[in-house]
């Protein structure tokens, strides 16, 4: 009697368990399958371009000569975006989480989230039609006064459609991502450690340096990397804002190009080896993003011993 009551199964509950675990397993496998499928597609389609004779590739000097200027252009635009967006995002997030009165904080958080809801083509149109025009006098000033720096070498673009403008637009686009993730992390900083700092006679800023930022560091890195992912892959805004051209060191002249914009602008009219070249460019972008994410993970785990986890 007792033996049967232990071995008998309650049919309904068991079935639910099996369905649920099967569904989650399938979802997990699907992600891997999609990722693998995309990677496979990119590699297979890119092979013709990678193996083609140099003179068949656009520019006539082989795939490497074609790809590296736009890789550098992509990185420049993304770095500009992060250099501008990260401090502002962390500042805004700290203000919302630790400085603003409660009413203002939630309103401001909502507005920042709203920034993320604006379609990228709108940012592109705003950057091309408004920001570029308004900012070109500043470029003129930079060329005149800071022109000895290679990155501000003149003559400045009269239209303002430069890689710097594209970077600024990208900064506005990644700002809400970094802000809202950082804010969530800052809010999770343990009260215990905040009070420990305050009780030692820390000012609010010192408390943040002691208790909040160290705790939030891995989270900030993740947030910045997510922002970087968006900045690297952003297509529409760059395609609209940037007046593209050959790789140049100066950020305030027209020129440079990013991988994503290059693909978007050329793909519709491409055929044959050109398509393969663009897909190979996509593969390179995929690898860059993957590398960025792996480096981010490595940075985060390197300091695990001193994180709040143990």
């Amino acid at each position: 009697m007792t033996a049967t009551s232990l071995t008998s199964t309650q049919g309904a509950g068991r079935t639910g368990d099996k369905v649920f675990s099967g569904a989650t397993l399938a979802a997990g496998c699907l992600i891997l399958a999609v990722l693998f499928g995309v990677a496979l597609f990119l590699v297979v389609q890119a092979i013709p371009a990678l193996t083609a004779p140099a003179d068949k590739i656009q520019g006539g000097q082989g795939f490497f000569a074609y790809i590296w200027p736009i890789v550098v252009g992509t990185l420049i635009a993304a770095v500009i975006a992060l250099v501008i967006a990260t401090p502002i995002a962390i500042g805004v997030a700290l203000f919302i989480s630790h400085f603003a009165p409660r009413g203002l904080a939630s309103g401001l958080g909502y507005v920042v989230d709203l920034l993320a809801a604006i379609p990228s083509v709108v940012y592109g149109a705003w950057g091309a039609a408004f920001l570029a025009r308004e900012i070109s006098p500043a470029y003129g000033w930079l060329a005149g006064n800071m022109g000895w720096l290679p990155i501000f070498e003149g003559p400045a673009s009269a239209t303002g459609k430069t890689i710097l403008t594209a970077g600024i637009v990208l900064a506005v686009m990644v700002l809400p991502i970094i802000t809202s993730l950082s804010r969530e992390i800052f809010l999770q900083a343990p009260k215990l450690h905040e009070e420990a700092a305050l009780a030692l006679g820390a000012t609010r800023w010192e408390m943040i340096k002691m208790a909040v930022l160290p705790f939030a560091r891995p989270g900030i890195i993740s947030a910045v990397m997510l922002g970087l992912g968006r900045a690297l892959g952003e297509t529409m805004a760059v395609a609209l804002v940037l007046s593209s051209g050959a790789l140049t060191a100066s950020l305030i002249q027209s020129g440079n190009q990013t991988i994503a914009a290059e693909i978007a602008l050329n793909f519709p009219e491409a055929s044959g080896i050109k398509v393969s070249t663009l897909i190979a460019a996509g593969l390179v972008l995929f690898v860059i993003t993957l590398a960025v994410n792996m480096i981010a993970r490595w940075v985060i785990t390197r300091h695990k011993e001193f994180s709040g986890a143990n």
Partner: protein
Amino acid sequence: MSKRIDVKDLNVYYGDFLAVEDVSINIEAKSVTAFIGPSGCGKSTFLRTLNRMHEVIPGARVEGEVLLDGDNLYGPGVDPVTVRSQIGMVFQRPNPFPTMSIRDNVLAGVKLNNKKISKGEADVLVERSLKGANLWNEVKDRLDKPGSGLSGGQQQRLCIARAIAVEPQVILMDEPCSALDPISTLAIEDLINELKDQYTVVIVTHNMQQAARVSDKTAFFNIAGTGKPGKLIEYGDTHTIFSNPVQKATEDYVSGRFG
């Protein structure tokens, strides 16, 4: 290096709610004073008003005076940051900074306000503070390891070392042993006995034996009922409070006949 605290007619509010009503108490320098009482009677809240840590909680405010050797903590122009650097605090749960090494934890308060300190001075201070907290022998070979790797009792002593490294006038302890095992508790109690040679110590505890063991004077707080403010019922020599209290409520509480 220790000062007395005199509290005059202190009321503590959370918003409109009166949490602690009309407390007047004189805490002697270089002594251990224990606050006892049932949960929710406002003893921790009151303790926090002694170094303005209650201000961390939104809506908390006080009326009345807290005098540190005659200087009002709530006087105009008094900076809570300065107050807290003079009156240190040890919390219920050990809270060393997890991202810092043991050494950096001890130096955390000293490095505030951009104070410069040479490596030699820092070494001396770290050793003195950790010895003062009876922790030096256990950690001297791993000062660069994270503080969060220590046991609970060691972490709490690290927190005490961190508090005394800034050389405060007063040390407040909010149930410092409630998360610790009996052996660690004993270590902390021994330490409290040594600390009173140099510091004024105020300790909140739920453990009446602990109050009897460590304190010179004891204050009993009580609350008339839920939603009513906490009050100071009786304050006197620990021996008197536990053997021959004046108030009936005190006697009921210390003899376990409470409620």
